């Protein structure tokens, strides 16, 4: 029983599931099912469409009562405001987007560099209390962030990592390493160990065998895992808001959340910033759609 989402997403002809019961008016039933699916899809997608619509509406249409669905004036002003400050310079939001790119990118590289070799070692070697080690690694991932952030806050204050990108990078890497190890272990398990044995019979060392033969086969898996780590770091909010305070360091989630601090909220700007922020994630998610099940369950459900 394969549980990779390959099947879930592909539309291959061989994978048609339960044949619809054509015996009792299968057609009417099928129409009903399609109608139900359409309604559900519209309900699920409506908030996203409404966000996109709001981001291109003139302000007076944003606050129109009753809400305007179609006849509104289109403007790109909100998107300009996301990137350009009122005085013409770079806006605080655009700086925060850049910070997000740096923090999410570097922490992902770090988590990958630490996690992939560890996953390989856990997959290939017998180790003392291996199951306990793996459980310990997974459990760190499940700790409530708001609980961990208290001692991390105190620790960072001691060593001067408060309000620094490095601080965020380290905590995100630590948060992503368990995920990387668990997901990559699944990918490594699928590469036969015999490849390495054969390489070693040919005179390569174990390290060379890993580097030259196994690693290249793991590249698609590494890419998928890295994208998930990237999405986690990109969307993360709790650590970001408690461990940073200045505009130069702050990442996008707390910066966007900061837009609703005042008495009046510029919802057009919030919508535009949200759209800009969500775009990379949706693109990345599309790239790893085949690995979605493995990714969202830390690679645990995948055989």
């Amino acid at each position, binding site marked *: 029983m*394969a549980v990779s989402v390959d*099947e*879930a997403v592909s*539309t291959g002809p061989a*994978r048609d*599931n*339960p044949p619809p*019961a054509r015996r009792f008016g299968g057609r009417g039933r099928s129409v009903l*099912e399609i109608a139900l*699916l359409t309604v*559900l*899809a519209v309900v*699920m*997608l409506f*908030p*996203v469409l*409404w966000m996109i619509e*709001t981001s291109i509406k003139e302000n007076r249409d*944003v606050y129109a009562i*009753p*809400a305007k669905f179609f006849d509104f004036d289109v403007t790109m002003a909100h998107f300009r405001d996301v990137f350009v400050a009122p005085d013409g310079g770079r806006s605080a939001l655009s700086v925060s987007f850049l910070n997000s790119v740096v923090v999410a990118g570097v922490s992902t590289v770090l988590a990958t560099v*630490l996690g992939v*070799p*560890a996953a390989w*070692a*856990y997959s*290939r*070697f017998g180790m003392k209390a*291996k199951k306990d080690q793996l*459980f310990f*690694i*997974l*459990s760190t991932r*499940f*700790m*409530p*962030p*708001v*609980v*961990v952030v*208290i*001692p991390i806050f105190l*620790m960072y204050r001691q060593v001067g990592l408060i309000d620094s990108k490095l601080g965020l990078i380290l905590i995100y890497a*630590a948060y992503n*390493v368990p995920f990387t190890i668990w997901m990559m272990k699944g990918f490594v398990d699928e590469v036969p160990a015999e490849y390495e*044995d054969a390489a070693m019979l040919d005179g390569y060392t174990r390290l060379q065998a890993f580097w030259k033969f196994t690693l290249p086969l793991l590249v698609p898996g590494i890419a998928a895992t890295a994208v998930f780590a990237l999405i986690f770091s*990109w969307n993360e*909010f709790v650590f970001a808001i408690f461990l940073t305070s200045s505009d130069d360091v702050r990442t996008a*989630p*707390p910066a*966007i*959340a900061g837009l609703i601090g005042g008495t009046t909220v510029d*919802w057009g700007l919030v*919508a535009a910033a*949200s759209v800009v*922020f*969500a775009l990379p*994630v949706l693109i990345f998610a599309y790239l790893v759609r085949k690995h979605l099940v493995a990714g969202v*369950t830390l690679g645990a*459900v995948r055989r």
Partner: protein
Amino acid sequence: MSDPVPLTTDDPGQVASATPPARGRSRRLGDRGLAVAFVSPALLLLLAMSVFPLLWALYLSFTDYSATRGGPANFVGFGNYTAILTSAQVHTRALTTLVYVVGAVSLQTVLGFAIAYLISRRTHGRGLLTTLFLVPMMLSPVVVGLFWRFMLDAQFGVINSMLGSVGLGQVEWLTRQRTALVSLIVVDTWQWTPFIMLIALAGLTAVPRYLYEAASIDRASEWFRFRTITLPLVWPLLLIAVLFRAIEAFRLFDLVYILTSGGPGVSTETLSFHVYKVAFLGFNTGTASAYGILMVLVVVVLTQLYLRYLNKLKEG
């Protein structure tokens, strides 16, 4: 999860083996060295960023330390723990969290499974549908929270606008005690139904087709087929999804922070949000730490359950 087969065939004990014993031994030592070298950096990072802070929190949980007051931490034994476990406030928060977790997770399980079932019966457009349904799950909780806050706004929110146009009254979604918790459950369900759907769909598509064919030869009814074939085969996987969601929902913080800030009053204040208030608004670091340790214990128990079912599933 199976232990790896011994890879080195040259056992040093066998003198007759083709390779000299010394080489076998060195290779084995090399393997161990490599394993340590590959695993320890990751473990060191986790020790520094997870275990050490947690031990620190454990220590603080037995003291009356306050992050703003500074000064020395006085040892108070289990004082913080008994205070939390007997506090009526905490009991209310626990009940709120329970209502929220049970409400949200059961709602998204039913909905997610229903959507997955409907999609799995389609031959065409399955990939497109799946991808579309997955969008909410990928968004940041900040974006989701902000956007629902806008849509649920009592004055110009689109939800009330639509309710008004079909002749229903206006609801103050986020400013009334009962509806605020309902709103929280609805938003969480909106974001995470795709998660259950995705896993259920993976399970549904993996049910071998011949089982259905055999059943239809026996002229089994649709409902019978669903109850005796589909459900039992998808159930273990669905249970994993539910456990996973329960863990995530239990530690939910960001959505509460953005959507309601725990209000009105304390009607949407979950345990996670309460910890934050104790730690960062009240600055009772010691109490907050004890609180956090208790929450971690709950999560560890849930994780154990999660892993147990996972292992059962893998063996089965």
